[in-house]
């Protein structure tokens, strides 16, 4: 995924990106490299609140576990790119929320490679988008020829607050083994009008009612995160700006 030439929208992993913003930031610094040794356990919470392009390369050794939690909320263009390689029996978990309004363009792009047998990966991504914002999730899961007993899941949902907002979601599977489980689900919708009315009928002003429902929509992704309370609070504050 790491590239040396300035990308264009013809590059699959950059097709919804703000190329002007990428150009302005070019050349990108080298990706952050994280290696979790065999049997190791790694946890990290990432808050993108300044319009950064962040690239992380994560390698999990045999039996290692990593849990990343991402809140992508800031700047005109914010991109989190994860390139994950899983060795035998490793376990990767991503819980991510991106929340954008105005003209924001936010994206989460992942490539998870199951290089060896018996690894598991689970990605849960929730996007909330208002105004003319764009939120993108591109998630590729690659299963190598001998990576039998792979168990991977992508659970992607987006909520549009305005008809002018855009959500892109693309799970992509590339599987060369024959005994694997690769689940992926994706849904894009808007807040249920009857539920909103029900909440308002009890006295909640419309903005508070929306915020409560969106909070519920996003809440689960940060379960068990480092700094879970801080992530929830930041997410809630950002939701408050959108409704």
């Amino acid at each position: 995924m790491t590239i040396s030439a300035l990308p264009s929208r013809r590059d699959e992993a950059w097709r919804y990106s703000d190329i002007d913003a990428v150009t302005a930031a070019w050349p990108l610094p080298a990706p952050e490299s994280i290696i979790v040794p065999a049997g190791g356990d790694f946890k990290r919470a990432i808050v993108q609140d300044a319009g950064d392009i962040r690239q992380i390369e994560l390698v999990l050794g045999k039996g290692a576990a990593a849990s990343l939690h991402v809140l992508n909320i800031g700047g005109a263009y914010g991109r989190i790119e994860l390139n994950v390689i899983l060795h035998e029996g490793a376990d990767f978990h991503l819980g991510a929320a991106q929340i954008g309004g105005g003209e924001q363009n936010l994206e989460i792009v992942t490539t998870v490679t199951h290089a060896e047998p018996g690894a598991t990966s689970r990605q849960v991504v929730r996007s909330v988008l208002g105004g003319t914002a764009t939120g993108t999730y591109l998630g590729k899961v690659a299963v190598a020829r001998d990576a039998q007993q792979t168990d991977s899941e992508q659970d992607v949902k987006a909520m549009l607050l305005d008809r002018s907002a855009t959500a892109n979601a693309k799970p992509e599977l590339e599987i060369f083994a024959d005994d694997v489980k690769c689940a992926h689900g994706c849904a894009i919708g808007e807040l249920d009008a009857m539920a909103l009315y029900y909440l308002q009928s009890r006295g909640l002003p419309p903005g508070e009612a929306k915020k409560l429902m969106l909070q519920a929509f996003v809440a689960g992704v940060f379960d068990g995160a480092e700094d879970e309370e801080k992530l929830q609070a930041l997410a809630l504050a950002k939701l408050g700006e959108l409704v």
Partner: protein
Amino acid sequence: MLKIENLHATVADKPILKGLSLSINAGEIHAIMGPNGAGKSTLSYVLGGRPGYEVTEGSVYFDGQDLLDMEPHERAAAGLFLGFQYPVEIPGVSNVQFLRESLNAQRKSRGLEPLSGGDFLKLAREKAGLLKMDMDMLKRPVNVGFSGGEKKRNEMVQMGIIDPKLAILDETDSGLDIDALRTVGDGINAIMRRPDKAVLLITHYQRLLDYVQPDFVHVLAAGRIVKSGGPELARELEEHGYAEIAA
């Protein structure tokens, strides 16, 4: 307390209410009965301000305020409570959090201090007890996985916590077994039978009225009230059916 005059309303451009008038004073319990399609639920939604229910003529005043000019949450803050025929399931949103935020939003609009978490839980426990509802259910997401009867009980617990001036209860009796019907009836009496409160019960059947004695009974047919009387009218309806009475 509530004064409805010549109310006309449409849903998806179809006229449903066609000149309905009704006055409810403090301390009174009114029952509206009527056949399917008469406009009973439309009346409750129009009074509750549900989007899509268009008032084309007439007026509704609640304590002297123009009710039709108010947003749903403003109607709640003014003291109106709508008990839903089909309470909505909202995954991920806890009953307790939702009710505390709702109650505090209402208190704020009346210039009152918000209720603390502890005080709120005490209030919620008391009202849940009144309706014989397990406190654990109040901590679960709003109505998710509740049976039909549990949802109706939850509506009444909400009513107890919110403590409105006027409750409009849309077929609160449907989906209840005999024991639950008695509990809900007792709950309505305990919460709402006061000189400064009023209730509008919307129902198909006499049975709820055995537990909550109405002062007035009205028959709604084809979008208008065609007959009004005392509690005896409900029994007449049960005996003879709507066709004969409304004719």
